């Protein structure tokens, strides 16, 4: 049992999943060390700005349709709600919903709040959120300021419980608590599991939870699962609070991303009896086959699944062969969150591309159900080992790595990463949509995107010929991992420049 719903907050990933943010080695070594849970995170003497939990938590919660979010922070921490509102609009467009702005209020903590506390503003924020948005639930996200000054957020919410007749839910996601921004997903899902989800009154044997991000490409899931007589429901963006309260009724949970889905899916399994399908994620053929087969096993529908797999696979054979011929041997470097990095390492090889390096922004040695992620074990079984690093968005490392490896293509995820490879003249694909390579057709679509990207590299070549990189000549000549030291041998003793 690893998900504890009796505590007010989710443990951070460093402690819960032995997650790390610094490492250089290979896929097989990573898997082997994770097996003994012996991997310690490397630290760096030079770091560039990363990301924090609050963004991941808030980004999920503000897109729940009839919820409101009150951000108890300085105004800057509310800045990424602008992006959330764009995501909101895109999601509404794809679902043919009426356009609205997100329901978000920031308490605008100032100097005064750091001295006297921000309770009055938080109360006002909650009252205004209730009055203006008429929400079914109000989530209150915490921040570095509220955390450091020791604001008793839960206490303040308790004090308003009688006045405000909807659940007031604290979401503990202070940025400084964890180096893993994915801890913010867990904070949001902990809040949902503890305050929103109710035990199922009756199970729906055909209902399948799908944990995804924006769900723009979800029609293909509807089609595939529909062929098995199953009905997917997409979590958690664009659900209603009522829907969320009943996700315990589902027959199983599937996830598009092991990093994203771990906490919610495991929590649903452990506490609400909804099995989590612990497969590869559905990117590319092996991924979707694993996803469907494991689902088939749990639902006792192996035969139908095999029939489906056979038909869908056969349908793409000619196109896939053509693409493989075209892309064969092109060298690729990957930089993504761990689950996507591992899944894309596999699927790019399905397209006959050669993955020369797999960078991931962090690495979870365990998922919440207690096992090493299936994706890395699957990769480690291959004969060929692949170089890998864990690089928490450190673009100085990625820059030197790419200069050294000179790949034909860089495939990345996380906004703000594509530019740095492009500045080196390397054709770059930025994966924003989690459905980019979903299943059989997705693999073909993505393969074509790769071919198109390689077909006309003039934009990145022009860029590279004109711009100057922001690094000194000294740095450009260093090994990419110069600043990545081993984990500190003793507490508080810091290694500045050990070369790995």
């Amino acid at each position, binding site marked *: 049992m690893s998900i504890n719903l009796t505590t007010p907050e989710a443990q951070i990933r460093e402690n819960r999943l032995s997650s790390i943010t610094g490492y250089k080695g290979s896929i097989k070594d990573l898997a082997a060390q994770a097996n003994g849970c012996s991997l310690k995170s490397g630290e760096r003497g030079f770091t560039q700005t990363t990301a924090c939990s609050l*963004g991941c938590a808030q980004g999920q919660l503000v897109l729940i349709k009839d919820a409101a979010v009150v951000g108890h922070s300085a105004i800057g*921490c509310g800045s*990424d709600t*602008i992006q959330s509102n764009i995501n909101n609009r895109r999601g509404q467009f794809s679902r043919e919903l009426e356009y609205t702005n997100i329901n978000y209020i*920031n308490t605008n903590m100032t100097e005064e709040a*750091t001295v006297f506390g921000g309770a009055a503003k938080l109360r006002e924020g909650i009252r205004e959120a209730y009055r203006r948005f008429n929400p079914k639930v109000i989530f209150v996200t915490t921040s570095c300021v509220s955390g450091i000054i020791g604001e008793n957020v839960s206490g303040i919410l308790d004090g308003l419980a009688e006045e405000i007749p909807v659940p007031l839910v604290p979401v503990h996601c202070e940025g400084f608590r964890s*180096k893993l921004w994915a801890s913010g997903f867990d904070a949001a899902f902990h809040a949902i599991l503890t305050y929103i989800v109710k035990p199922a009154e009756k199970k729906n044997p055909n209902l399948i939870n799908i944990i995804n991000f924006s769900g723009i490409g979800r029609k293909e899931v509807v089609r595939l699962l529909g062929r098995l007589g199953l009905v997917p429901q997409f979590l958690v963006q664009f659900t209603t609070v009522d829907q969320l309260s009943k996700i315990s009724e589902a027959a199983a949970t599937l996830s598009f991303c092991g990093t994203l889905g771990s906490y919610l899916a495991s929590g649903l399994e452990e506490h609400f009896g909804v099995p989590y399908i612990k497969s590869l994620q559905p990117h590319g053929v092996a991924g979707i086959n694993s996803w469907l087969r494991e689902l088939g096993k749990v639902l006792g529908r192996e035969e139908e699944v095999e029939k489906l797999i056979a038909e869908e696979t056969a349908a793409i054979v000619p196109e896939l062969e053509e693409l493989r011929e075209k892309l064969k041997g092109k060298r690729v470097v990957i930089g993504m969150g761990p689950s996507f990095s591992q899944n894309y390492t596999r699927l790019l090889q399905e397209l006959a591309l050669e993955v020369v390096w797999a960078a991931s922004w962090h690495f979870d040695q365990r998922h919440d159900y207690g096992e090493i992620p299936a994706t890395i074990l699957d990769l480690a079984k291959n004969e060929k080992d692949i170089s890998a690093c864990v690089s928490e968005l450190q673009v100085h490392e990625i820059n030197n790595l790419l200069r050294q490896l000179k790949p034909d293509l860089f495939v990345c995820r996380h*906004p703000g990463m594509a530019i740095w490879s492009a500045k080196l003249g390397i054709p770059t694909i930025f994966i924003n949509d989690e459905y980019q390579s979903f299943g059989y057709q997705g693999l073909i679509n993505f393969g074509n995107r790769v071919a198109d990207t390689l077909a006309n590299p003039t934009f990145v070549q022009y860029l590279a010929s004109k711009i100057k990189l922001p690094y*000194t000549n000294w740095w450009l000549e260093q090994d990419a991992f110069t600043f990545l030291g081993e984990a500190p041998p003793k507490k508080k003793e810091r290694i500045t420049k050990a070369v790995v």
Partner: protein
Amino acid sequence: MAKAAKKIKVIEQVRYSCALAALHSVLAIDRAVPILHAGPGCGQRLSTALSTTNGYQGTGYAGGHAMPCTNSTEAEVIFGGEKKLKELITHSLEVMDADLYVVLTGCTADIVGDDSTEVARGFQKQGKPVVCAQTGGFSGNNFVGHELILGAIIDQYLQPSEEIEPGLVNVFSIVPYYDAFWTGNLEEIRKLLEAIGLKANIIFGPGGGVDALNKVPKAQFNLLLSPWIGLTNVKQLEEKFKTPYLHYPVLPIGPTETSKFLRAVGKYAGLPSEQVEASIAELEKPYDYYIERSADYLLQARVGLPSRFITISDSFYALGISKFLVNDLGLLPGTQFIIDNIPAKYQADLEEEFKDLSPTISAPVVFTNDSGTIREKLRETKFRGKPLILGSAWDQMIAKELNGYQLSVSFPAADRFILNSTYIGYNGALRLAEDIFSVLVSSNY
């Protein structure tokens, strides 16, 4: 008199950001790099907000995830982060290629009480071009942050000059990146000043940079083209280098205000008025040409023309755009919402400007940073015909509700892609007219 908005202290919809977001003012200086002593999420979030979802300007030379940052977590909060900051600055000097390094603090560093300025001073003593501004997000908004950064550079980096260069004018105006049109706008100000015979020294944007910064003490005078932001900086420069300043509060948009502005600057600089008048006559010609040509449509479009225009904007644009639309295009103002949390001591002056938009026209002003307050006020207003809402991407919704037209001119301009457009001067006024009337022609009125 401005109607006092209901005293709401919380903010619905972000229309400005925190002091640390002014890290963009460092990024706007060529050859300067920010070093953040902040939590792990600050850099990304502020970068996304100001450089992406605001005209998709992009991160430039060393923005976004390239910015060095301590990514402070528990250890720095509990034990203090000065040691880590020192280590980061040391390595940033080795790794990042720049002529000026500006250390900026976030909430964590400032609340736990790190003496970051002292850490930076240690590097200054070794002759390194490192300055520090304490911009913890709770200490104010990005306008305050912008002033703090300029203040730190003036105080800790600029050196007095023995010579003064006649005709050299330092320009301090709109806030880089926050104003998505900043590069085009500053370039337009440069062209205007050069047209009347001055040399504009502009720190931010292409053509400026650390070189421009080094020339600041040589200027004949400082021009503050801003309702209030930057006033502390020109006062500071007056004190440190004895450079006088001209404070001109109205962002000049359109012929009436731009010509007035150039006359005022010319007079202050001691330029012969014939020279200035001759330049103005030339500058007005293209504007007059296009306005004559488009007057057919501008008149016929009155069928669907906005009954009143509303700005929901910072004090720069609210005032500049209002003056243009009233004086040059003959439109009528509704309530103007000023969202930049303008300090109380400057509010009365700004209200005076709105009282005298033209000799016969004034506009009511509401100072608020909360969209809920704005929405409620607009819902109470009875509009005849369609209002024109000049605000940000947030305002698409209220414009739809009011059956109005909407154009994003202000942060966050998440529905605009902006490169070198400007809304300043004669050219900028044409551009603004293009954008407003494009909204009209693309809708079915």
